[in-house]
């Protein structure tokens, strides 16, 4: 068996079953043979083994040569790539966020910090699985015959008339939404910890300070506590959604306004249900009152700004005029 025969056999082995492998290989063999003969005529002598090897090598690696006859020569093509990346980001962010939040909450509830580190490891494993599964699905979609000229996974029913007006929903910077999620996630952990286990130093400090003063918080705080937990969770979840899809700024402002309103209602009930610290008389109660009123004022400003941004957004969208990003 000559070197050329071995090369052609290697090319044939790399061609898929549905291709006319014999035909393709015969043509490649004829082309290489013609090249060798032409070179021999030019040199006036037979080619050496090294010269034949160089000529065959210049033709290309057998797998590369065979791959050129394939109808699809990429794993995920340019038409599917944008949807591949957005799907990968969306699925990875949602799954990892759920695993981390679940791990953090269960570690607080069960007083076992190891559960959170277990969730971290699980999240890493999930990332690898998500990458693999999403890639396989899109690679298969690339190879499935197209329906109506569209690959599976690409939105075929989009309507140019329903696209957002320029700047009506300006994208939120990812750094801002990430910071918002982290801040609210930490706040949620502190709040959950404050209700029971007291693992977090801030909660321990607060609990010790109250114990030193022989004071305790009254059940009047329940309403403010529940409102704050609900509001914080709402903002954290909306931050995940906006991180994945930065154009959902209206959703972020709605979540902020709603969360602010929920906390305001909770604080209002708490204010009504005073005293807030036992024993009831003394400076601590006055301090609690001022703190609650200050929180109401700050939240009122936040809700007003969010509602204002939403209204401006709606007006600009109706008018189709560009708008600056509402707030970071």
């Amino acid at each position, binding site marked *: 068996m000559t070197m050329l025969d071995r090369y052609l056999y290697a090319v044939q082995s790399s061609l898929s079953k549905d291709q006319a492998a014999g035909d*393709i290989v015969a043509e*490649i063999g004829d082309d290489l043979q013609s090249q060798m003969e032409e070179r021999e005529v030019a040199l006036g002598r037979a080619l050496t083994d090294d010269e034949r090897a160089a000529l065959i090598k210049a033709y290309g690696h057998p797998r590369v040569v065979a791959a*050129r006859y394939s109808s699809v020569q990429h794993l995920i093509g340019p038409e599917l790539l944008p949807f591949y990346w957005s799907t990968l980001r969306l699925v990875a962010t949602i799954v990892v966020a759920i695993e981390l939040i679940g791990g953090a909450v269960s570690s607080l509830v069960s007083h076992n910090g190891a559960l959170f580190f277990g969730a971290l490891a699980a999240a890493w494993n999930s990332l690898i699985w998500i990458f693999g599964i999403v890639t396989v699905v899109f690679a298969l979609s690339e190879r499935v015959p197209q329906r109506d000229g569209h690959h599976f996974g690409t939105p075929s029913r989009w309507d140019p008339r329903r696209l957002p007006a320029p700047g009506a929903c300006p994208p939120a910077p990812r750094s801002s939404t990430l910071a918002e999620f982290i801040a609210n996630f930490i706040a949620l952990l502190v709040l959950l910890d404050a209700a029971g286990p007291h693992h977090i130093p801030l909660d321990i400090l607060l609990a010790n300070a109250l114990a030193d003063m022989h004071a305790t918080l009254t059940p009047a705080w329940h309403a403010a506590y529940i409102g704050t937990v609900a509001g914080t969770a709402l903002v954290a979840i909306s931050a995940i959604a906006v991180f994945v899809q930065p154009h959902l700024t209206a959703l972020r402002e709605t979540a902020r306004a709603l969360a602010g309103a929920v906390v305001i209602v909770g604080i209002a009930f708490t204010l009504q249900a005073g005293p807030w610290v036992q024993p009831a008389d003394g400076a601590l109660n006055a301090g609690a009152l001022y703190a609650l009123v200050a929180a109401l004022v700050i939240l009122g400003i936040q809700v007003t700004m969010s509602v204002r941004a939403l209204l401006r957004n709606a007006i600009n969208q109706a008018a189709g005029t560009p708008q600056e990003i509402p707030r970071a």
Partner: protein
Amino acid sequence: MAVLSQLRSERYGYTLRKALQEAGLDIDEGTLYPLLRRLETQGLLRSEWREENKRRKRFYRLLPAGEQIFEQLSDELRRINASLDRIIAEA
């Protein structure tokens, strides 16, 4: 288009590549043969194995649909060239 132009007369792969090379268009074999196969699948040319100089060779020739596409592409190229010439002249 260059391949279509050369296949108005029958040629086999190697001579086609040499003809293109001599005309100043050096297409490597890894591009040319898969391209010929795709053009044949699209019904623009036909191929036939025949023996020549004691070796079997695959000969290609343009089909009427290929001639039509070639004419269309030639017209389009002439239009683009004319437009570019005008744009460059005005610059």
